[in-house]
């Protein structure tokens, strides 16, 4: 069943535990960025109850079939895959639709991911929120994972649960993307520091994405930020994540130190340990 191509595809689960921290936005932007960098990329929306990846990619009107029809033999994979117009290296496959009669099993997910892997360099699986069956199905098919979280206690706690489950499943490596970072709040020590989150979760940091209004604008349009250059800070961050995934060494800069204002400087000085 597991067909291996000359260069095996990397199958990456994108998960967070908590909802609304940016899984789908990361999947969409990373998918576009990897495709633009020349990798054949497939994104699988594993959240069939509440699927949204199609909407963020602007492909919601082009979905005809889902993984379910492919598995049932009703259609071929090529028919179900939705190719992105501007980035033909990227295709989307929804796992199912909300009206599905039978839920997919972990075995189904493995089969569909294996099919995608045959024709891709990267398979990104957009995991549903939570740690129930949807997560377990998606995780069953993954080799490695990106855990995305925000510097908030609830998101970090949920991420920790997910990391524990990924460890049990043997998913390796697991890397961290810290999303919605507010540099000024961090500099003022009113937000968990980057090192706090990486220390607590004990994961290598793959990317830092600052809070960026452009993310909302881009989702309104259905055009991921990475599609149109790297104008905004978040677009730059997503592109850097893609480059790091491809093995390039791109330095990580702590935004709370990079753009430190006078107030933050004073605050840092008075927070310096004196004894």
């Amino acid at each position, binding site marked *: 069943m597991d067909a291996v191509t000359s260069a095996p595809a990397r199958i990456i689960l994108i998960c967070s535990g908590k909802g609304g921290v940016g899984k789908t936005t990361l999947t969409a932007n990373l998918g576009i960025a990897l495709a633009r960098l020349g990798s054949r990329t497939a994104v699988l929306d594993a959240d069939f109850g509440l699927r949204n990846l199609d909407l963020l990619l602007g492909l919601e009107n082009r979905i005809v079939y889902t993984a379910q029809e492919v598995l049932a033999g009703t259609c071929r994979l090529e028919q179900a895959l939705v190719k992105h117009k501007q980035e033909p290296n990227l295709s989307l496959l929804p796992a199912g639709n909300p009206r599905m009669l039978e839920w997919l099993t972990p075995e189904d997910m493995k089969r569909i991911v294996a099919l995608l892997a045959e024709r891709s360099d990267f398979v990104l699986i957009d995991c549903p929120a939570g740690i129930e069956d949807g997560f377990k199905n998606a995780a069953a098919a993954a080799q490695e994972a990106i855990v995305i979280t925000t510097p908030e206690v609830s998101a970090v706690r949920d991420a920790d649960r997910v990391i524990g489950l990924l460890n049990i499943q043997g998913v390796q490596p697991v890397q961290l993307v810290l999303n919605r970072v507010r540099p000024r709040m961090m500099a003022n020590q009113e*937000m968990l520091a980057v090192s706090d989150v990486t220390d*607590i979760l004990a994961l290598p940091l793959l990317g830092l994405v600052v809070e960026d209004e452009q993310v909302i604008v881009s989702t309104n349009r259905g055009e991921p930020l990475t599609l149109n250059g790297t104008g905004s800070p978040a677009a730059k961050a997503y592109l850097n994540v893609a480059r790091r995934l491809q093995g390039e060494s791109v330095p990580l800069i702590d935004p709370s130190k990079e753009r430190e204002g006078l107030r933050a400087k004073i605050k840092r000085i008075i927070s310096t340990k*004196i004894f």
Partner: protein
Amino acid sequence: MSLLDFINRLLGRQAQPSASTARERLQLVLAHDRSDLNPELLDQMRREILEVVQRYVEIDLEGCDVSLETEDRVTALLANLPIKGARRLDPPSPADGEPMAPTSSAPPQDDPPGREGTLSQLREIANSSSAPIPAWVHPDPE
């Protein structure tokens, strides 16, 4: 201590930046999450650990600290139990020439005055695990 803490202390304020509060709360809740122990079970384990230790040595109940700590995703149970003195009850030490105490129910002979309250609590704990155990966190000597 940072300069800010120092200034705050001088001014009699106690302002802590919320990031450090978040970090502390997270570390505590994650230690519990990861060990799969709810606070109730942890408390029960604490009491039982103290019970066992108290059979052998006399410990300072107010200075006791049993907690879970996590570093690099490894959780450890840390117990800091200051010892006031040996109990000399169980096991009996023949060198002292004392009669063999068959169980830990025999009261120690050399109770200094003023510790009765705590000691009777200790004995209660040591003797019967089924009896309700006094709240060790806030021992309330008469």
